[in-house]
């Protein structure tokens, strides 16, 4: 065993917040809704995905892949051999079981590109049940941006694994821009190589129920992960984001910032931020933050940060969570400069999201995100301005 391998701790650690990963469906029984990991999710609205019916329906794929990067299909067994990160919940386990093979995006070592790799997945109807399995293998010292856009409608359950090589720099963005009736259960898991740096941004606007995991673990010391998120829930929408930073190696960093806005009757958002600092993970730094802006009556924002610490020998660990309406002092300040109340609210919401959008680091997408936020605002709260 090398010193680095000794410094890893990948054995199962009992964490009641994070059930152990397993491909065995028996380990992931159909939830009743009372389980810790399911208690916020409206299971009845998942339209039977959890029953695990076989289906060979697909989303429509449109890709922009630069030369040198390959996109192929591999069997489920091959995906596991490559190092796919095992499912930690039923929908992901079903996706691995029923997808009939995984898409493998292979970025060779030392590959560098400024233009993003883009994968657009479009569904045609919520009647389609689609099982997705994607593996992204990013070679050592590669530098790439991967943009994944979900649109149209479907019942989509996907397991995605990002295997990031040593020293690589990867910027991943997953946009959930579904039609109103779509259901999306997504599990993204990232394994961060030694000294690699990963940014993962999850953005959810559309869909009836969207429940996304972003999990990160480390294959060696020195890895950094920045997990960003932005969501905007309208009336009746359920948008859930579950984060898990599993510090499996020393000297690693995780930084989580999720921001959301809610408007309309029955808009519901859930943010769960779990961090596990294992015994081996000395000298790590972690911080997580969730902020929710409640724009109208009748909304519900659940926000739960959890920190499990098994070693005190760390650089820093912290979290913050805030859910509030507009800040009266901010509105007063803007209005005292002649800006109307509605315009002041628009500025504050824009600012709230701009702050995060500026961190995404993909200029072509940032523009689109700003426009989408504008369109969301025009729908409800600020429609008098439109």
């Amino acid at each position: 065993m090398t010193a680095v391998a000794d410094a890893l701790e990948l054995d199962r650690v009992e964490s009641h917040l994070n059930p152990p990963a397993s491909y065995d469906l028996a380990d992931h029984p159909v939830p009743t809704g009372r389980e810790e990991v399911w208690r916020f999710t409206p299971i009845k609205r998942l339209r039977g995905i959890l029953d695990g019916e076989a289906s060979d329906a697909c989303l429509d794929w449109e890709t922009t892949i630069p030369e040198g990067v390959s996109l192929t299909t591999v069997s489920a067994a091959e995906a596991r051999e490559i190092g796919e990160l095992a499912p930690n919940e039923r929908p992901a386990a079903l996706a691995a079981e029923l997808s009939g093979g995984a898409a493998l995006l292979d970025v060779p070592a030392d590959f560098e590109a400024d233009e993003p790799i883009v994968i657009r997945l479009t569904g045609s109807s919520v009647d389609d049940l689609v099982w997705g399995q994607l593996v992204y293998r990013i070679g050592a010292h590669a530098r790439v941006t991967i943009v994944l856009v979900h649109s149209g409608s479907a019942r989509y359950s996907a397991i995605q694994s990002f295997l990031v090589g040593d020293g690589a720099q990867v910027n991943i963005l997953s946009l959930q821009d579904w039609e109103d009736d779509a259901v999306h259960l997504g599990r993204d898991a990232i394994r961060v190589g030694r000294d690699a740096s990963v940014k993962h941004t999850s953005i959810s606007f559309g869909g009836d129920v969207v429940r996304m995991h972003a999990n990160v673990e480390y294959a060696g010391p020195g890895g950094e992960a920045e997990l960003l998120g932005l969501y905007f829930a309208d009336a009746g929408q359920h948008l859930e984001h579950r984060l898990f930073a599993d510090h499996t190696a020393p000297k690693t960093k995780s930084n989580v910032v999720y921001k959301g806005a809610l408007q309309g009757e029955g808009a519901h958002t859930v943010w769960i931020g779990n961090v596990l600092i294992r015994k081996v993970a000395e000298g790590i730094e972690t911080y997580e933050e969730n902020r929710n802006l409640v724009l109208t009556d009748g909304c519900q924002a659940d926000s739960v940060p959890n920190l499990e610490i098994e070693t005190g020998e760390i650089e820093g660990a912290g979290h913050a969570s805030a859910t509030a309406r507009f800040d009266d002092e901010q509105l007063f300040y803007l209005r005292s400069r002649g800006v109307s109340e509605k315009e002041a609210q628009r500025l504050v919401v824009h600012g709230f999201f701009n702050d995060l959008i500026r961190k995404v680091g993909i200029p072509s997408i940032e523009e689109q995100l700003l426009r989408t936020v504008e369109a969301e605002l025009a729908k409800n709260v600020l429609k008098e301005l439109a």
Partner: protein
Amino acid sequence: MSTLEIKDLEVSVETEDGPKQILKGVTLTIKDGETHAIMGPNGSGKSTLAYSIAGHPKYTVTGGTVTLDGEDVLAMSVDERARAGLFLAMQYPVEVPGVSVANFLRTAKTAIDGEAPKLRTWVKDVNQALGDLDLDPTFSQRSVNEGFSGGEKKRHEIAQLELLDPKVAILDETDSGLDIDALKVVSEGVNRFRARDAKGVLLITHYTRILRYIEPDFVHVFVAGRVAESGGPELAEELEANGYERFLSAQAAV
């Protein structure tokens, strides 16, 4: 021609023990081209006066009137007051994350003027105003008041004063927390504003220091929610020499 007229103004705030009266009948008239200094000890209600005129929701007006050129200010919303020509430079300017200074200034100018400023002259005006206050051009890309030093916040307030060009400016302890260099820069900004035609200034301060740079036409000593004494600049000199003792003991004797 512009006149801010405050008559018998009474204001209270909600506290845990019910409403508490802070202003107990304030009467003050600020005419064209006049600078009035309001000086008073902590807790005398100076800031309450400033925020009540600007329309902060925390304060409830229970009596009296405030008019600007005869128009009822108290009947206006906060933003209507600003558009009518009132400006409040705040003691503690508020952070607005993600909103750039440039965007904020243009939005405010558009609201005040009722039309968007012409792009070319506006950019020049903004850079000039920021430069005059020793704020470098990259300042306009920062989020409003976020991470600003105390001095930057105050200079930013005065840059807004010069750009938005109100009829009457209320400066709430703009001098507090400034070092002497920043105080000079801020005072020069206020003096440029005063030099414009027909501008009124209500300068609220705890210290006489700023009055060496901004010379007032009238000085009012504010104690226990009302004007205790009014005079010329010589009143500030007396305060400089003797402090608020005479006024506080007179108050205690009542």
